[in-house]
């Protein structure tokens, strides 16, 4: 079974994001980069399928050289091989374009399943997976929390507003992983040592015969408005406090 997992490297969710000087990118200084947390579910699920049915797990990433670290983490978790499409300018690119690019690298791998995280925690788009499915002519089963393989048929569960959709299709398929699919393993220390010796192939856009044709570009990034400070209700007695609170809720907050 050929199991491909696409990985995006994103700022750690604990990182304080600052808008860059140009107003349309983020300030990259002091950012800690990690594998997109939803992609970890994809890696874990692929490794479990491999353990059960055999095959190879190949992880694919696109972006600057630093993305190697996210790919190495996946290799350390147990993936067999990694492909990096290296390009300094890819971070923030049109996700539909990134999907087309990934599809070029994935197609020759003859995948049975292509995994994605259901979205990346940086731009929250969740589009690259659809773009890959489209480019490769595969069905896409998105935001899944469970999968069962039976021969060349796959059945998945997808939570929808408190209910569960059960969907099935034939392989090959593109899946996007939601929290709850599994509990990703750590990249163990021996795994990290082994990962050093696993193949990591680097390709450029030119190698894949692809040129940038982004249809959208980021015009501006606006930080969330600063939160207004809280207000302490004044008053000597409980009665007075209650009156002042009610007044503030009615006249200032206008909620009652």
């Amino acid at each position, binding site marked *: 079974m050929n199991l491909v997992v696409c990985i995006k490297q994103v700022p750690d969710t604990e990182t304080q994001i600052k808008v860059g000087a140009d107003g349309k990118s983020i300030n990259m200084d002091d950012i800690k980069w990690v594998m997109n947390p939803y992609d970890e579910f994809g890696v874990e699920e692929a490794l479990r399928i491999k353990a059960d049915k055999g095959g190879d797990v190949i992880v694919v990433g696109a972006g600057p050289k630093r993305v190697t*670290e996210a790919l190495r983490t996946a290799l350390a978790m147990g993936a067999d091989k990694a492909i990096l499409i290296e390009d300094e300018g890819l971070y923030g690119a049109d996700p539909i374009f990134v999907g087309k690019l990934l599809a070029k690298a994935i197609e020759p791998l003859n995948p049975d399943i292509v995994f994605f995280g259901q979205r990346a925690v940086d731009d929250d788009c969740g589009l690259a997976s659809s773009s890959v499915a489209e480019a490769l002519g595969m069905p896409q089963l998105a935001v899944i929390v469970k999968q069962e393989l039976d021969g060349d048929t796959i059945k998945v569960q997808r939570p929808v507003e408190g209910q569960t959709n059960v969907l099935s299709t034939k392989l090959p398929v593109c899946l996007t992983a939601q929290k709850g699919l599994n509990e990703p393993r750590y990249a163990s220390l021996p*795994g*990290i040592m082994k990962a050093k010796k696993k193949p990591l192939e680097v390709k450029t856009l030119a190698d894949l015969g692809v040129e940038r044709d982004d249809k959208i570009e980021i015009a501006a990034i606006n930080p969330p408005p600063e939160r207004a400070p809280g207000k302490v209700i004044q008053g000597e007695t409980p009665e007075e406090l209650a009156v002042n609170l009610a007044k503030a809720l009615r006249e200032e907050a206008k909620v009652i």
Partner: protein
Amino acid sequence: MDYTIPENLALMVETIRRFVKKDLDPISQQVEKDDRIPDGIVEAMRELGLFGLSIPEEFGGLGLGALGECLVYEELSKTNACFRTRVATNNGIGSQGIVLDGTPEQKERYLPRLASGEWTACFALTEPEAGSDAANIQTTAELVEGRWLLNGRKHFITNGSESHVATVFALTDKSKRAKGGITAFIVEKTYPGFSVGTIESKMGMRGSHTCELIFDNCEVPAENVIGGQAKVGQGFKTAMKTLDKGRLTMAASALGAAQRLLELSVDYAKQRVQFGRPIAEFQAVQFMLADMASQIYAARQMLYHAAWLRDKRGSAVIKEASMVKLFCTEMAGRVADMAVQVHGGMGYMKDYPVERFYRDLRLTRIYEGTSEIQRLVIAREMLKA
């Protein structure tokens, strides 16, 4: 000078960071109350490879250099110190005698089991009459009918009660002592005449156990002299080399704990309001935070430099290692004291981790050579011709 951390070491630090945050820190206070690490956590530490940091790859370990080992300990020490201590004797004093001076057969038998964490090892040098003056040990070993008989009592032995195997130092020639009269033995817990004595009640380091080991005509096979027959009488050198090697990692542990205390103190100072303002706005508090941060920064530079030097030279950095252990552990003591002060009464409460770090860090200035002994080593190295 390039201080970039190699990629594989950075990944290891990241794994430890997550493990600490997700699995260890949430149970830190519980472990403190129970005085015991849950079995599942020890198993998780085995799976992560934490027992084999410094054991060579050919024996199933990771074969990390000094920098790698220090980085792992620094990160692992940002939570309850007992977790670090649980793996520390396998990586450090318990196994290193065998790594440094063991025979091929000894390495083959013990190192893979220690690297996987299947077995735990401890280091038994200290005795009631032999602390800083380690050469004054009273435990004896006598060769009787082809096997060694050990008699005596060790105390303050970390992980002694959990261990399957102990590196034990005993007198084989009373007249020579450190100069050819002390021998290092590998003692398995199943050997007749070996037993665990009192488990000490300590100021801190709960979850980690320190105990007496008793040798009553304990029978040790002749081939269990570390390094074999040729090394009879050479045990004191093995002990000193082992301790030299451990100094940097002890410093790294103190550094990691100090870093965590700084982070806790900064967070607390920002949210604790007195006189209508966060206490972080008071200059007296700011000065403490600034002093903590500066001292941590200095400590980290010297630690990484000495570790780098050791990896580069491939041999001991005796003077530097003692300087680093001295400075980092004393620094962590000062930082812990300031952290309690920044936290006020909350810093004195058992519900909050600062109090625990304060007690646990106190030990780092005492074991594996007190601060005074480090100063003696530094001066000796500096003044020798």
